[in-house]
Each structure stands twice: as structure tokens, then as C-alpha cells.
């Protein structure tokens, strides 16, 4: 964990309400895919947690959906803006469990953390499949990015305006060894119920601190309570109780 100053070096719209922001700064603590950063914004008292989409030796990139005041403010940040950013938060995905043919399942604003994960997995697995679910054609993002990594990509839209009509669970391929998923809780639950394979889920929870101090983000698991910001956001399928 580290709190340091980052500079916005790119911030642009990918769809009408999805933005990609690249931040330049001390990335020494940006580690596992599935970890998140927590951004302090002028005009918001609490920080905003966002998953790491991609990272390189000088910068970290996030992709965020504008849903409220904080993300609205974020979408208007100009290049050069300095932000206080906490990095290296959460546990991240365990990539050792992937097997030869992992499947990545992302829904909407839950897609971003799967990209850095896919980047790591394509180096070690024979085949990486990705299913991305959106509401409609204008919401679709990142399809090309996953394809460029060499992943087999399926896109679903709820209204059928692009790709397979339906939800991610209508398009799960055969023969995967393990899965990783992130998205709205209803989607996570549907994935949980529709696969017999083991896997990992990335959860969201409202956070006070994001580094384990306030107990704001606790959830019950099979092995006792866990803080989504510290022992999460990634939980293994076998730990999940869906009890809140």
C-alpha cells in the first residue's frame, strides 16, 4: 500500500459514459491484477475505488463508468491534474489456479480488472476465453483490446444489438478449466449458479477507507468475515455465502 501523487496523462471517453484514465506516478505498489487504487478528488470527501485496468513501469490505467458525482468530476479532469492516489489495495486474482484454459467473464464496469488479468494469463495458458456482457451496442468497450492479446472473445448484449443476444451466462463456452469474473452482483450470482467449475469473483462494496481500517466493507464468507478492501475484492467461489 502506498499513498502518492499521480498526474493525469490521458482521460478520454470510450463510450458515452465509460472513460479511460491513465495516471503517471509511483507504481511500485501496483501489483496483482484485480487489485484496486483509491483516488482522492477535489469536491468529494471520500476516495473513489477503481480497479487497475493496466499498468506499466511509469503509469496505471483505469476504466470507469460515470455513475455519480465523483465519476462525473473525474470525467472532466484535464491532463496534468495532480491527484492523491492510494495504490496496491486488495488481494487481487490468484493466477496460479487458472489451469490451461481459463474463462474470464466481465459485465459492464466490471470488465476493466479482467484486462490486466488476461495479459498475465495469455503468457502461461494455452487458451484464454473472454465473455463480455453489456446492455446495448453503444456500451461495448474493450473487445478489441482483449482480441489483441490473443483471447477468444464473445460479446453479449441484453437487447441483442451486438454479438450474442442475452446475458453472459447465455454465452459461456465449453471446456474451460477455471473462471474469473467481475460485474454487477446479479451477474456474479448468475455465474455462480450456472457453472460447476471453480473460480474467483471480484466484489464491490461501499468503502470508508479502502485499506482495512474502518470495517465499512465487511462481508460474510464461509471462513468468517472478510473486508472487501483487504481480504477481497476477490473471493474464491468456495468462500462465498451471498449473505451480504
Amino acid at each position, binding site marked *: *500500500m502506498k*499513498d502518492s501523487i499521480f498526474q493525469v496523462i490521458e482521460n478520454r471517453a470510450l463510450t458515452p459514459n465509460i472513460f479511460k484514465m491513465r495516471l503517471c506516478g509511483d507504481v511500485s505498489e501496483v501489483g496483482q491484477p484485480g487489485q484496486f487504487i483509491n483516488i*482522492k478528488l477535489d469536491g*468529494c*470527501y*471520500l*476516495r473513489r475505488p477503481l480497479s487497475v485496468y493496466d499498468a506499466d513501469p511509469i503509469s496505471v490505467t483505469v476504466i470507469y463508468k460515470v455513475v455519480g458525482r465523483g465519476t462525473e468530476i473525474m470525467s472532466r479532469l484535464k491532463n496534468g491534474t495532480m491527484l*492523491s492516489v*492510494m495504490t496496491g489495495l486488495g488481494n487481487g486474482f490468484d493466477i496460479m489456479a487458472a489451469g490451461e484454459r481459463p474463462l474470464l467473464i466481465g459485465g459492464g464496469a466490471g470488465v476493466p480488472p479482467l484486462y490486466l488479468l488476461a495479459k498475465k494469463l495469455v503468457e502461461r495458458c494455452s487458451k484464454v476465453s473472454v465473455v463480455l456482457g453489456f446492455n446495448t451496442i453503444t456500451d461495448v468497450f474493450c473487445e478489441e483490446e482483449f482480441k489483441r492479446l490473443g483471447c477468444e472473445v464473445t460479446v453479449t448484449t441484453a437487447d441483442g444489438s451486438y454479438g450474442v443476444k442475452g446475458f453472459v451466462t447465455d454465452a459461456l463456452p465449453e471446456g474451460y478449466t477455471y473462471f474469473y469474473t467481475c460485474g454487477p452482483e446479479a451477474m456474479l450470482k448468475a455465474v455462480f449458479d450456472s457453472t460447476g467449475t471453480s473460480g474467483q469473483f471480484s466484489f464491490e*462494496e*461501499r*468503502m*470508508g*477507507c479502502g*485499506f*482495512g*481500517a*474502518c*470495517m*465499512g*466493507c*465487511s*462481508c*460474510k464468507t464461509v471462513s468468517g*468475515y472478510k473486508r472487501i478492501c*483487504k481480504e477481497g475484492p476477490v473471493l474464491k467461489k468456495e468462500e462465498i455465502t451471498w449473505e*451480504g
Partner: protein
Amino acid sequence: MGRLSVRLCGIELDNPVIAASGTFGYGYEFAEFYDINCLGTFSFKGTTGEARFGNPTPRVAECATGMLNAIGLQNPGVEKVVAEELPRLKRCFRKPVMANVSGFSIGDYVYTCSVLDKEEQVGWLEVNISCPNVEGGGMVFGTDPKAASEVVAAVKKAVTKPVIVKLSPNVTDIVSIASACEAAGADGISLINTIPGMRIDLKTKRPVLANRMGGYSGPGVFPIAVRMVYQVASTVNIPVVGMGGVSCAEDVIEMMLAGATAVQVGTANLVDPFACRNIINELPAVMDKYGIDRLEDIIGGAING
């Protein structure tokens, strides 16, 4: 004694800055960011006799100048705190720590306090009779002078360490509660705990918090806290620990002028994990700016004699 040091119930603090209960865990999360031995001390997460999971989530909601929380006293229970948390804390903190205790009955408070009283690391017991987030938990004792004095008297009989009673701001007459605690033998008073509040999500048209209501803390409560510290410090003859919205060295000085012997910093730690350390580092320069030689000299300076 240095410029910043103060005495709290017979124990010297290197500086008056104390991280507040519930915002500093059991210390070691912050020890990953900096050496927490720079603190005056800290008050650890409210501990109860039995383990508690706490309330359903969402447990926090943002406000313009602070936040609401309805954690519901999640803690592993006093036995685990003694067996696991305190040994772990010992590796990163060598000063006496303040043990924050909550309960649901007088017997509960007495049990938890007497267990923690035996721990060498514990310097003070901070008895929280003001948690707004659990049914029948604490605040019922903190809103009635008679109930408050019964808890304090019972705890005092069972322990040897100084007992600081943490009060709720959710009362019409804070002074009568504080006086009742003093009469029952309290060694100090700390205030304020959070103020009950609510936020409603315009999209779902439902309260943000699963518990519907939560406790408001952060910079927005600062003037209320200063007023209550002033009222209590003007009346009682035991030390007052002031808190509520403190976020900078100037706020610490203002709290001390209102009558606080030491000052707790809570919510600020959640947004900036370095908040306490920064405040401590800034204090000397701010003292110079306002012509303050030693902090101990300004305690209650704003109270007319």
C-alpha cells in the same frame, strides 16, 4: 516534557494527538504506512465481550463534509483481542494504548473492561456509552445521567486503570451526563461520538445505509464538538478528550482552547492515512504562528474564569 506533551489521567503523552476508535483498527494497518509510535496514542476499535459481525452493508455513506457509518461494532470479541490483536500490536506500538469498550448491559461493560484492565499494554479504558449504531448498545447508557453513572460506578469498582467515559452528542444536556459520570468516579470524559444522520439514494429512493441511519462524523461536526467540549470542560474537574471533525493542527489547538487535554482524530485517518502524523508534524509551526509556547498551557484557554 516537550512543547507538545500533555498528561492524560496521570500518563504522559508525547503529544495530544490520539487516533480515534473505529478509524484506526488495531493499529497495524497504519503501521504499514508509517511508524505509529509518533502518535500520542490511539484508541482501538470498540471491543465487546462477544464477537460481533456488525450491520449489513452498505455501512458507509459519503456526505459533503464527512461521512455516515453504521458499522455496528464489528469486532472479534475481547478474548480474541487479547489473544491475537494485542500481541500483533505490540510489534508495532510500544506506548500505552487506549482500550475502547462497548457493551449491552452493565455486566457486559464490567466483564470486558476487567479483562482489558489486566493487559499491560492498556493505558486507559475508554468506555463508549454512545454507540448510535446498535440496538440497545451503549447509547441508552449515554443518554440518561442515572444509567451513565451506574455503568461508570460498576466499571470503576472492577478496574485499576483510568476510566475515560465516551459520551454521545445526541442529548439535550451534555453537561448533566458528564457531571453524573464525574460523580460516579470517571477519571476523564471523551466526546463527541458520531451524530445520528441519514442519506437517501436518489436512484433507488431508499436510504443509502442498510441500517437506514448511521453516525455522522468528519469536518462537518467540528463546531458542534468544540461547543460540547467547551460546555463539559467548563463544568467538570476531570480531563476532557475532545474529538469530532479534527483534521489539522489548527483544529487540535482550537479543541484544546475549548478545554480538551488531548484530542482524537477519527474520520480524517480514513481519507488520509497520514492525517495524524501530518497533524503532529505541523503542530510546532502552527503553535509558533499563534505564539503558543507549550500546548499544556492553552488547555481551556477560551473558557472564562
